[in-house]
């Protein structure tokens, strides 16, 4: 198929960016979206132009590296997939596709479609862990039985890949879904309860410091999340936060 791409180009963090039109031919439905960009880049390189830089790595939807706002939606029109799992069969001949980086103050553009998501790392560093040192003498894995439903729910929260689609989908660029996924995972497990009070306060504080906005309660994040992380996690984080701040 033949497509008209409109792509955000930006030389570096300091420069101003702009949209550039790139018509492209010979795209097949079986190609992934990123393979389509590979074809574009191969063509640009052969013409002596600079290729469009974009983040990607595992190309199977688990590392969370790829991003891209495609026609206004994080990871494009398909549901429960990352951009690398989006296939061109979702588009039709003659389509215009607008490709931009995820937009958020806390995610500055580095170059073209590449953004800096280190704010997410710093939120995790503030408390996204259980303080247990490595030793060969921790208690046996089966010493504490854990309710299967709680374990499954913790797992569902833990599948967040940290891509940032929730932030990009949100009018306020809120990182509530991301932060609450980790808070929830540990809040649901007995191992995580011990530090629950400090964890939620520290992670929320860092989230605010990074410049993410407040939750809009519109649920766009849940719709766009490639891993289907549920809004319930935000409710749980709010509950945890409230009880943490009132208990002190």
């Amino acid at each position, binding site marked *: 198929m033949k497509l008209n791409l409109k792509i955000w180009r930006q030389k570096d963090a300091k420069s101003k960016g702009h949209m550039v039109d790139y018509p492209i031919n010979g795209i097949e439905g079986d190609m992934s979206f*990123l393979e389509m960009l590979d074809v574009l880049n191969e063509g640009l390189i052969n013409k002596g132009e600079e290729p469009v830089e974009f983040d990607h790595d595992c190309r*199977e939807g*688990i590392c969370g590296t790829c991003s891209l706002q495609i026609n206004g939606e994080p990871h494009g029109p398909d549901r429960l997939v990352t951009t690398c799992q989006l296939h061109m069969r979702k588009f039709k001949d003659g389509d215009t596709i607008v490709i931009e980086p995820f937009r958020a103050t806390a995610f500055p553009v580095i170059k073209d479609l590449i953004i800096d998501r280190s704010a997410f790392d710093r939120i995790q560093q503030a408390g996204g*862990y259980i303080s*247990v040192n490595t030793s060969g003498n*921790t208690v046996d894995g089966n010493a504490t039985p854990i*309710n299967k439903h709680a374990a499954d729910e913790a797992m569902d929260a833990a599948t967040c890949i940290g891509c940032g689609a929730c932030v990009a989908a949100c009018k306020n660029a809120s990182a509530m879904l991301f932060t609450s996924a980790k808070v929830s995972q540990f809040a649901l497990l007995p191992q995580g309860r011990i530090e629950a009070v400090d964890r939620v306060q520290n992670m929320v504080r860092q989230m605010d410091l990074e410049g993410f906005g407040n939750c809009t309660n519109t649920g766009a994040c849940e719709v766009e999340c490639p891993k289907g992380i549920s809004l319930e996690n935000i409710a749980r984080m709010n509950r945890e936060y409230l009880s943490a701040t009132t208990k002190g």
Partner: protein
Amino acid sequence: MGILDSKIPTGPLAEKWTKHKNDIHLVGPANKRNIDIIVVGTGLAGGSAAATLAELGYNVKTFCYQDSPRRAHSIAAQGGINAAKNYQGDGDSTYRLFYDTIKGGDYRSREANVYRLAEESVNIIDQCVAQGVPFAREYGGLLDNRSVGGVLVSRTFYAKGQTGQQLLLGAYAAMNRQINRGKIMSFTRHEMMDLVLIKGKARGIIARNLVTGELERHSAHAIVLATGGYGNVFYLSTNAMGSNVMAAWRAHRRGAFFANPCFTQIHPTCIPVSGDQQSKLTLMSESLRNDGRIWVPKRLEDAKAIRDGKLKPVQLKEEDRDYFLERRYPAFGNLVPRDVASRAAKERCDAGFGVNKTGEAVYLDFAAAIQRYGKEQALTQGIVNANEKEIAKLGKAVIEEKYGNLFQMYEKIVDENPYETPMMIYPAVHYTMGGLWVDYNLQTTIEGCYCLGEANFSDHGANRLGASALMQGLADGYFVLPYTIGDYLSNDIRTGKIPTDSSEFEAAETAVKTRLEKLMGGSRLHSVDHYHKKLGKIMWNKCGMARNAKELKEAIKEISELRADFWTNVKIPGNAEGMNQELEKAGRVADFLELGELFAKDALERNESCGGHFRDEYQTPEGEALRDDKNFKYVAAWEFKGEPKDAVLHKEDLVYENIELKTRSYK
């Protein structure tokens, strides 16, 4: 042969590790604060090592090319992690895990290392549970297990089809805790370009900041490489796009021996190649073989009709299907080890029974499992006289709970619903057993340079069993290296900070700069991908699932010519200052072009078939791998001498004191 001292402790097998831990030197808490360690790579091995070393009190710097340590490719591991817990009471033990791993590796790994791995496996599960890794559980609240290829027990712990993700996020969380304490400095979007040696010891690295393009000098008392495997030498593999051999290869060029490069794992259950623009291959977890049955049509005309789209697989009667793994290997059936399953699939496809357009695919079918689970569910839920439809619905729900994310992934890529029609799969490059040679302490042949996880060669011999890569990565990082590195560092408590303005750092940085300039200065004829794809074709066709002397010799010649062409004609747009993804790729492909040749040389030198290394010339009448223990029971460790063709072979003889060498049989 004095150079290759594996430093295996004396004493009975089961006591070696404990004894060794008691014998080695320690570094006191106050001195640890004065010692710096660099960890390159932040996957399971690097991440767990960095966190543990920082907990102990060392000053750690981590480096990864990704934008966050959480994105290392360990994250893509699906099926699970083995541990000899014997929670299922099905006869598992440390010895049995040890035995299965040695046998699975076709008797080409070190007994002492593998036994230690089996011993530590149980600690990994305890540690990860304590960290809050949400492993799958049974209704009673205890940990659930499943089985993978090559074993007869259920010892695999898992978190849906995302075990690697959960374990990596556990290690990442442990790292974050230390970053927050200031004990780890994390350098993301950085690539190690060279290793710096001072008086023969590894004392630092030259790293390139991938955002600014600047070269940086970092010093430390020891360097840990945990940078994964080199499967991308094949261009198409299940590795991440950025996975590369640069750090290990740079260390090799500085004196670290590279062991068994030809031992590569071709994984049987991957989604087949669909087109020329394909950039990578996607794995379908081995755990699927617990419930999926692998087959092709019995008759050639049926296979042809399926390829032409005239016949659908579900229309083919049971008696017209050839469940070739169950037929050839009744004892292990669909759960034979990966090398065996891959070769069997290739054999059927080569004989004309392949089922996709290109004839390079076999079926992985869940219909029988859906029926079985459906009936079981109907019974437990008290549904009397359930009809076909109800049973199928109940069965599909069970399959969805177990493998939902994999089925979804398959459907997105192939555009077919695997609940209704069998999956199509074909083998693809997945893992590399070879890697930097290390001794029992995980030290390379360069003093102070350690290597962990997939990047080293040590535990999987010629074939790795499923759910063992995660086990090795975490055992190395959490439980082995933190002990053994202390022994080495105990000599460094008076050394003080290593300065980065020495002539050695200066020379290394200049060499990196020169190399980058040379890459940028090509005649600009072909893109980096052009060369990478060409290399991949040579590797897949001549060094792939079956190899022979004639083709390996051709491969050596072709790769060497391709390398020369690359250095003269490669085209990299932009410049070396600032972010330049083409330049990053070029540096990695340049190293693959050297490694690829050594790979072929190693395969040519090993005149036997073992595990994933299958030489056409050496097979039994039934087409199974024919090992030659008399002549090849050794680790091939290559010393760099300028060009891959000049590499010098050193042999580490493998001694089996506890296991009798046998012909591997899964029949």
